[in-house]
Every structure is written in C-alpha cells, then in structure tokens.
C-alpha cells in the first residue's frame, strides 16, 4: 500500500479530506508531570461563588440589602405560621401566584432568607432563561427553570427549600376581576416531585400580590406576536404610564404558612398513582384557597 497517499481528486471534490487548517493546529505536547493513581485531585481556588444552579450568595445578599426597604416599608410583609418552615432538609413551598410581573416570589424568598437564613430556589418559566441580562440576574438571585429533574435534585440531593407556583402563568395572567380565585394547579407535577424526593409540601397563601399590579385588560393577539404568555395592560400602566411597568402599588402583603403535608408514598418510585397525585394536588389547592378566603375575610383594607 502506498504510504504517503495523497487524497484522490474524487475525494477532494467530495470534501472527504480534512481541511488543511486541521493539520497545522495540533499542539506539541509539553512535558507535564503525569498524575498517577494516588495523586490527590487537582482543585483550585474559585474567584466567584456561583453554585451549580447559577445562584450567587454574594449577589443574593446584595439584592436583599436593596430589597429590604421595599419589603419592610412598601409591601410591609407580615408572616403567619413562619414556624412551619423547616430549618433543615428539603421542602417544597407551594404558593398562589399573582401580579402581571409577579411580586410574590421576591417577597417570599426575601422573607425566608432574611429570617430563616436558608437559601430559597424559585422555580419559574423557561422564558426567563432566554432573556439576556434579566435571565442572568434571575438565575444569580436563585431562579431555576421548572424542570422536574432540577426540582428533584434540589429537594432530594441538595436538601434545599424550593418555591413553586403550580398555577404558573395562568395565575399571574388572570384579570383583576378573578383575583384570589386559584387557577388549575398544572397537572400535579409538583406533588409527584415532592413524593419522589420524599419531602413535605408546605402550602403558602399570599394576600396582596393581586393588588400590587392588577391586570385590567390583556391581548392574546399581541402576546402571540411577541411570544409572551400574556400581554397585559395593568392599572399601574394606566396610572403611571411607562413607569407603571416597574412600579408596584403598595398593597399590604400578608403571608400565611400552612402546616407541612407529608406523604406516605415511598420516595424514588418509577411512577405514582395518578389519582393519588391529583388528590394531593387538589388538597393543597383547596387548603391555599380556604386560607385565602379566610385571610380576605379579616382584611379590612388593601393598603394597611
């Protein structure tokens, strides 16, 4: 066989040869001490503190400092049943969701991190991850896309607190006239994850987010055009113009944490009974709905 065979013309025409650039780019190995079986693992100091989930403790601390006045003086968040939140171990926090740009997630996450000194990871739409700059900030602040595998890993392997809004955009995209009427809780996926991870669900009822940025009108056609889940006109926009996009009304936030719900199902099963999952999902939904009605009965004013 000819040793120094050049590629044939046919091969060259068909492109079945490496491009000339490929040949010249290989590097010449420089001797480096080879590691053997017993050498310790090579690690290095890190400059940043972004974890596997993209969350940065430093950035989170900075956000807390900036957000604290809003939490304390604007929304005047008030907690009930805070003792139901576990000081260790994984738990899935399930809350109702409202406001055109939801104001409940930051309030809940801020309150828990501030007083329980535990990080909270907030599960949210894939949409966030696609947005330049906003997506990065969202991720550094503890946002994680709501992929079942992510949720399971956070709860089971990392034993963290995870906040989820099973209503999703159905909750945030509802009109003001439907306020505090819980939408469907997805397909109960959140229950299945809690069962699989072997962690309790802690329902949380939030009052105030609905009034902080109420939607008075929405356009399905415009939403489709821009690729958003909904395109709202909020009362804030009507009153404040473009400033209304970023300004919440100072509605008083009341947050009630309900007792944890534990499941008897053994964790890590391949599949869980659909009816059991849907029952549990409905139970959580009803508990939150009842708590909301109860809280609204005693609320004398939206603002104080």
């Amino acid at each position, binding site marked *: 066989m000819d040793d120094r065979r050049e590629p044939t013309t046919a091969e060259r025409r068909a492109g*079945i040869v490496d*491009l000339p650039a490929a040949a010249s780019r290989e*590097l010449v190995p420089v001797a480096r001490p080879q590691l053997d079986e017993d050498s310790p693992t*090579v690690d290095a100091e890190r400059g940043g503190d972004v974890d596997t989930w993209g969350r940065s403790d430093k950035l989170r601390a900075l956000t807390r400092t900036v957000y604290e006045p809003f939490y304390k003086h604007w929304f005047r968040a008030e907690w009930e049943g805070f003792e139901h939140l576990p000081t260790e171990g994984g738990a899935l926090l399930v809350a109702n969701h409202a406001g055109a740009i939801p104001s409940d997630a930051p309030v809940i996450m801020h309150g828990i991190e501030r007083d329980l000194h535990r990080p909270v990871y907030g599960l949210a739409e*894939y949409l966030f991850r696609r947005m330049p700059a906003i997506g*990065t900030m969202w991720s550094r602040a503890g946002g994680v896309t709501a992929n079942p*595998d992510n949720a399971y890993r956070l709860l089971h392997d990392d034993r963290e607190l995870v906040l989820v809004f099973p209503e999703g955009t159905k909750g945030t995209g509802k009109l003001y006239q439907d306020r505090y009427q819980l939408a469907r809780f997805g397909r109960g996926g959140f229950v299945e994850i809690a069962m699989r991870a072997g962690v309790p669900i802690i329902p949380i009822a939030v009052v105030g987010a609905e009034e902080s940025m109420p939607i008075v009108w929405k356009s399905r056609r415009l939403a489709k055009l821009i690729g958003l889940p909904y395109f709202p006109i909020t009362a804030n926009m009507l009153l404040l113009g473009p400033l209304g996009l970023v300004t919440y009304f100072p509605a008083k936030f009341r947050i009630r944490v309900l007792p944890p719900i534990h499941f008897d199902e053994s964790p890590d099963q391949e599949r869980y009974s659909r009816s059991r999952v849907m029952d549990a999902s409905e139970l959580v939904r009803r508990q939150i709905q009842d708590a909301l009605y109860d809280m609204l009965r005693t609320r004398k004013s939206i603002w104080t």
Partner: protein
Amino acid sequence: MRVLVTGLSTFWGGRAAQSLEARPDVEVVVGLDTREPRVPLERTEFVRADSSYSILQRIVQATDVDTVVHTHLVVDSTRVSGRALHETNVIGTMNLLAAAGAPDSPVRNVIVKSSGYVYGAGSRDPYLFREEAKRTSPPHTNVERSLLEVEAFLRDFAADNPHITVTLLRFTNVLGDQLDTPFSQALRLPVVPEILGFDPRLQFVHEDDVVAALMYATTHDLPGVFNVAADGLLPWSEICSMVGKRRVALPPLFTNAAAEPLRLLRVVNLPPEWLDLLRFGRGMDNRRFKEAGFRYRYTMAGTVEAFARGLRLEKTIGTKAAPSYKYEREVEDFFRHSPAVVRHES
C-alpha cells in the same frame, strides 16, 4: 489483551495508544487512521485507512483484536467539512460496528468516545443531564446530528450483540493546555467572545481525565452509557477571569451573523454548537461513572486553573515549536521488526 485504536493520529488516539503500550497486559496495539501518528509510539502498529474505515473488517480478522477503542469521532465542527464529518462519524462507525459484529469476530469490548453535544443546550434543559435524559430540542448542527446517529447505531449494536461489552463515554467539552479545541482557542485570544447578557454555566473535563477514562473503560467491564465531566460548573465569566482574559460581547440577536466576519477573518472560529452553549451552558451528571469506580484527577476549577498555568508557561517560552516527531514508515518498521534490534522482554 489485543487492542485496536481508531483515530491514531488524533490527540486522543495517540495518547490512548501511548497509555496502552505502557501496560504489560496489552499484547498488541493496532492503530488506524487516515493520517500518520503525531506522537512517538513504541510498539503500536499503524495502518492507514480511508476516512470511512472500509478496510476494517480485514484488519479485525487479521489481527484478532478483542478490544476496540473508537476515539475517532469528530466533535469539533470547525475542523472538517460537513461531508467529511458524516463520512468519519457515521459511515466510519457503521463500518467499525459491522466489522466488530461479524459472525466470527474476536471483538468482545467496544469503547466509544462520544460527546455531550448529543444533549444539546437549551433553555428547557435540566441543569445536569443524566445519561438517560432526552434532548429538549431537535439537533440543529451537523456534529449533533451525526453523533446521535452514531449512538443509535451503538444501541442497536449492543442489543444485537449481547456477548460484546459496549461502553459509550459521553465527554463534556475538553480543556487542556496540550489540546487544541474551540474552547482552548477562544481562551487563548486576547479577548474572549461571549453573548451579551448571558453567562452560562459550563463544565469541562481535563484532557488527562479523558485518556484516563478511556483507559479505565478498557480494564473494567462497563456496559452502558457514562457521562464524563469534572466536578462542578463554572460561569463563563469566572472561567475567563481565572485565565486572566477580558470578554467581548456578541449581540444576543443575530449572533451567528455577527460571528461570521470573525470566522472569515480567522479571528475565532465559533462552532455553530456554541450559539446555544454560550447562552444556556450545559451540565452533566457524572455520578454514574464515579460509582463505577472512576476517580477524576481534576475538578472543574482545577481543570481551568491547570489550563491557565499552561497558558502562563506558554506566554514565557512560546508555543508550537517545530514538531519534534515525524513519522517515518521505514524507521518505525526497522525498530519494530528488524532482527538487528535487541528487544528486551519486560
């Protein structure tokens, strides 16, 4: 053990053959490639093949190899044309498996070096891919498509040949100061490209760990798919600052169009796979391979730091001196086969 290494002239093939030569339990190493080997080899027999390996069946029969290490899957699309990629990856693997699965074939182990590109990178992805995880978006680059085809062949092959152990190793992007990849090229630039507003979490594996993983698979019975990736993920910004580089942003819209002039000017060759990777990053769950007993020599931070050190050395002493090794068939034949050479039994 008698081993056939495909892609002998590639970085992986060469390093794998060198490691195999050092092992007393390996009787014979046969290396196959379209080009000459680039590293000095002592007893590996080099056979030149065409890129689709049509000669394979004869070699397997003649040399009676029991283990095939298939390192010759192209995962860097900037190196070869789309057509060559298809020939090498898909047709090459097809011929390889046909030879290995022939009725009287002596092959009992097939180890394939695939890539994390089969998972893609997207906004809907899990943050850490398990081996059984499915892609969340259809593949849209040649490399991804060809690797998925190769993996489908392998699944069928493993099912049809239960007596053969098929080990599929999916390596995340490799970084190392001796290896030339799009990532090492980008990190060698004065300023490193990023996509404005995105800071993806990335996971690399050190080049030494790649060779070690291939070797580990030859000595252990590991049927199935295994992710190979270092512990930990780092944001692109942190990787760049560890290497001491500033970043320059490409626009988040029309990124591909903006990258094209850079490609034409040969400033940086952004592979199409990067458009997603530099947005969303990719993480791989490496626990299964660790549970199988493999120990990584480098963490993710260790990998980047080792690369940064290599770069600092390079800065002082320069790189790419003329290759110290050139393959000469006559010389190699002389040392391997001439009765005049005194061979010491080890």
